[in-house]
């Protein structure tokens, strides 16, 4: 894509995100839009957002692919990979080539390679002194992310942080914890809802997610609300 088109799209994305933050939103919808923007606007093949739970483990809360194979790689990364390092050291961590860089995180690098992932970038989600999770970007090609993408990704990561913490005004540490817990438990209901639709409509988990999402969009309902209705048996897709 040409620079101009991309600039315009980025501008549109941030304008839309700003509107969302002002107008009120469902945190799951926001995070899903963010990973989709990463995929559409940056030179990456998949993206995910991971948040730390009460045990301090990073959990995937939004991802451009709901295929369990992709999520599992991000989760491996969260256990021992660039993500964990980015989270704990509060720095951007890059793995330019998973075929060369095999020693740092053997298990992660191996499964990343087996899924055709050649390079990975992990960006911490920070608010002042607190790190709440990471934004994870993955590419099928080796190489560093270009500086332009790095900057855009950092800005998207910041929006994610603000979005998670500001859904309700968050000031102190316990409120931050509550807000993270809220986002993570919304994810639990979405996973359950995927299962419900996978069962009733005989779909794969990622197709089930697509169906839930398109229903939410066409009815202008928050993703979490659609998920709750599916789990509660009030809605059938």
């Amino acid at each position, binding site marked *: 894509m040409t620079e101009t088109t991309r600039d315009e799209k980025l501008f549109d994305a941030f304008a839309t995100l700003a509107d969302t933050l002002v107008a009120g939103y469902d945190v799951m919808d926001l995070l899903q839009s963010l990973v989709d923007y990463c995929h559409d606007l940056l030179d990456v093949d998949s993206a995910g957002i991971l948040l730390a739970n009460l045990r301090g483990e990073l959990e995937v809360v939004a991802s451009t692919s709901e295929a369990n194979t992709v999520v599992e790689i991000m*989760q491996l990364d969260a256990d021992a990979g660039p993500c964990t390092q980015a989270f704990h050291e509060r720095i951007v961590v890059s793995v330019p080539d998973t075929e060369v860089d095999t020693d740092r995180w053997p298990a992660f690098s191996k499964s990343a390679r087996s899924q055709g992932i050649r390079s990975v970038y992990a960006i911490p989600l920070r608010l002042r002194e607190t790190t709440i999770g990471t934004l994870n970007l993955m590419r099928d090609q080796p190489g560093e992310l270009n500086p332009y993408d790095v900057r855009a990704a950092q800005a998207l990561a910041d929006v994610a942080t603000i979005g998670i913490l500001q859904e309700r005004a968050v000031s102190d540490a316990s409120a931050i914890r509550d807000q993270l817990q809220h986002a993570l438990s919304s994810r639990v209901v979405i996973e*359950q809802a995927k299962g419900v639709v*996978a069962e009733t409509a005989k779909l794969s988990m990622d197709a089930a997610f697509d169906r839930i999402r398109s229903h939410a969009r066409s009815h202008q309902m928050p993703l979490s609300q659609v998920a709750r209705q599916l789990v509660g048996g009030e809605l059938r897709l």
Partner: protein
Amino acid sequence: MTADAFRDASETVSDPATDIADLARPFVGLLRVSGASVSTFGPFLDARTISATDERAGRIDELQFDLGEGPCWDALTTRRPVIEPDLASSTAWPVFAEAVRGQRVGAIFAFPLVLGPLELGAVDLYSDSPRSLEVEQQRQALALSSIVSRILLRHVVSGAQPVTGTFSRRLVHQATGMVLAQLETTPEDAYLVIQGRAFAENRSMRDVAEDIIERRIRFSTRPEEETQ
């Protein structure tokens, strides 16, 4: 009056402070029978009296386990209440009836303890003299039994390994969604069913969850429909 009695009984069994050895007592209070017992047996759990209000109630359980016949077996197999207002004139369980002769068992009732596809055991109630249970009483006994089923299953699986790893938990949540749709139940019950299945097969919940997601396991409350 009966609504209050039912509320008291269900609060007592639901109270986390209630020992499982005391689960039978509220049935006596609610239904004014002479004695009650709660027992596990069947394909999933070992035959064991969990709670009995008196010696006779325990003895009635034991005889049925030993003989392999009796109201509790029928209740579990059919997943429906068994109501025998007059045991002496019944022809349903000749060996069992003979064995309890002389123990002053006039009427006997049994209610199944099941959760989704899992058959856990039964509640047995007896009365000194012949009598029946009204439809409303049967309904209340069934409702109380279904609370007891959940408590028993939670108790049984409480020693099981928790699900470790965030990815494993994600799979378990997906499987929970599939099972709740299969059984038309709540996420809590669906989770408990997966947990029970994992416990019964001595496998991890993640393994069972993967089988559910890959559609190698499907749950149904009609056992013949369940695939292995």
